[in-house]
């Protein structure tokens, strides 16, 4: 019964960097070691992309560009809206299963809970972005501009992933359980589908167009399309939306974690 003597009491609470790193590492391990998350997530994204490209695509007219070139940049840019349900579910599960309680009982900054989760889920989204983009190329997409433009567009997609990760964390924190989190995250589909991502907004009935025009996804996907061709229209508006969402949802997440 002397073993306890070899466990010392830490002199200081962990730094925010260290604590965020541990929170992120654990979430990433869970993702990588659960094939249902890391592999099936990609399979699902690719199946959606396949259906749009080859099933619905033939019936959709995207103006001057071919449908695959219209679809793929927007699909990749908005992929976080499909994968985000998993984020909300993971956050809700942590809360219900006591993991969040354990974290909150430790001498850890509340910001590091949000920061760690955001780092982890943004990283998994980079994986989704890269893998769906790869399948996009396989399904016939070609960069309209230079590869540097491609990198810039990728950067925008990553920024969207970070922003919506925080939004989905908040959903998970407000959901009473994992099923409810899954249900709440379906609202993202409304924003994904009633936007210019999969069909030109002008093809929608007039009463629906204002929603499409003034919600964040339309300028976000239009900005990616624009950057790919070397122009910057809608980029400012898209980044403004990112900033707004971060400023609104980060404090909600931190406050909500406090009383989770």
């Amino acid at each position, binding site marked *: *019964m*002397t*073993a*306890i*003597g*070899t*466990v*010392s*009491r*830490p*002199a*200081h*609470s*962990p730094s925010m960097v*260290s*604590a965020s790193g*541990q*929170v992120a*590492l*654990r979430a990433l*391990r*869970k993702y990588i*070691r*659960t094939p249902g998350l890391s592999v099936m997530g990609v399979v699902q994204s690719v199946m959606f992309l396949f259906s749009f490209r080859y099933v619905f695509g033939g019936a959709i007219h995207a103006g001057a560009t071919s449908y695959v070139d219209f679809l793929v940049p927007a699909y990749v840019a908005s992929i976080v809206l499909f994968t985000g349900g998993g984020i909300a579910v993971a956050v809700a599960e942590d809360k219900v*299963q*006591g*993991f969040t*309680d*354990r*974290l*909150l*009982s*430790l*001498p*850890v900054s509340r910001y590091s809970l949000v920061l760690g989760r955001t780092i982890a889920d943004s990283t998994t989204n980079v994986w989704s972005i890269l893998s769906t983009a790869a399948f996009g190329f396989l399904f016939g997409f070609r960069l309209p501009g230079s590869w540097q433009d491609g990198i810039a567009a990728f950067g925008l997609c990553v920024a969207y992933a970070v922003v919506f990760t925080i939004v989905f964390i908040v959903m998970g924190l407000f959901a009473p359980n994992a099923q409810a989190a899954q249900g709440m995250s379906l609202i993202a589909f409304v924003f994904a589908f009633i936007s210019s991502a999969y069909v030109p907004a002008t093809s929608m009935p007039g009463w629906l167009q204002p929603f499409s025009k003034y919600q964040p996804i339309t300028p976000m996907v239009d900005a990616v399309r624009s950057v790919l061709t070397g122009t910057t229209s809608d980029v400012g508006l898209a980044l403004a939306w990112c900033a707004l969402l971060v400023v609104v949802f980060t404090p909600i997440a931190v406050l909500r974690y406090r*009383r989770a």
Partner: protein
Amino acid sequence: MRTDSRPLIEARGVTVRFGKITALNRLELTAEAGQVLAVLGPNGAGKTTFVRCLATLVRPSNGELRVRGQDVVRDAARVRKDIGLAGQFAAVEPTMTGRENLEMTARLFGHGGAAARRAAAAIIEQLDLDEVADRRSSTYSGGQRRRLDLGASLVGSPRLLLLDEPTTGLDPVSRSEVWAAVRGLAAAGTDILLTTHYLDEADQLADQVVVIDHGRVIAAGPLSELKASIGQDVIEVVVSDAEQLSAAALIVAQVTSGQARQEPTGQRVSAPAPGGPGQLGEVIALLAAASVAVDEIGLRRPTLDEAFLALTGAADSTDNSLAPAGLTRIGSTS
């Protein structure tokens, strides 16, 4: 800092409301360091809420709650450095190994990388998890997972360990594994507060007991005195033939010179037996003489239900002379 001279836990009028529900109702409690304290109570009594308050997860709506003199609301950050929490569900990451889980929690307590590895290794040895330490915790048995969870709350060497129903849902073998682990920790000098609704668990582990009902403390004191107050062992007889139930009840009542409780559905009679085994022998002899056929007969400890009945009954009554010496009985008018 004078914190070491302060009580381990001090609760003054702690009230917690969730909407219209009052989970804790002006709870009063003082616990000194150097002991295992069991918080007993039925489901919904407020045990978990009290632990969550101590763990800084729930803020009291009213009242003051201190851990080693530090307020759980104003000094929450310092309280968190002093406590370790193992909640009702094992909060370990199933896709990580036992060692990875312990090292992660050690880092979150504030250990550096090397110190975290040392702490994890020490806990693995202490809680007898060597064989499974490098397997994913999803492969653990219920008892192993609970012990790992217990270990995770220990890697920061907390001054107060909070265990919320540490054995609920475990099979008997796992249960005794966890008990052994808790006993080992207590022997090594960790102060422990645990909640339970099993009297035998308190019996196995605790020095001091607090009984909570409806969000307030109804009895507090050393375990031995609580046991004395909730009465003697109980004689229980199950008759073969329901027709003979009242005959059996008469005999039991006569021997114990008290009230025998009859349960016609179970063909069961029970009564407190102040005379212990001697009276059991008398009952057996008289039942045989009266040709009452018996399926089952024995002497047992009162159940927690019976204990609560005794305690809540006494707490409601104004006659405090019923309270045994040494056991502080807290009435509803304070």
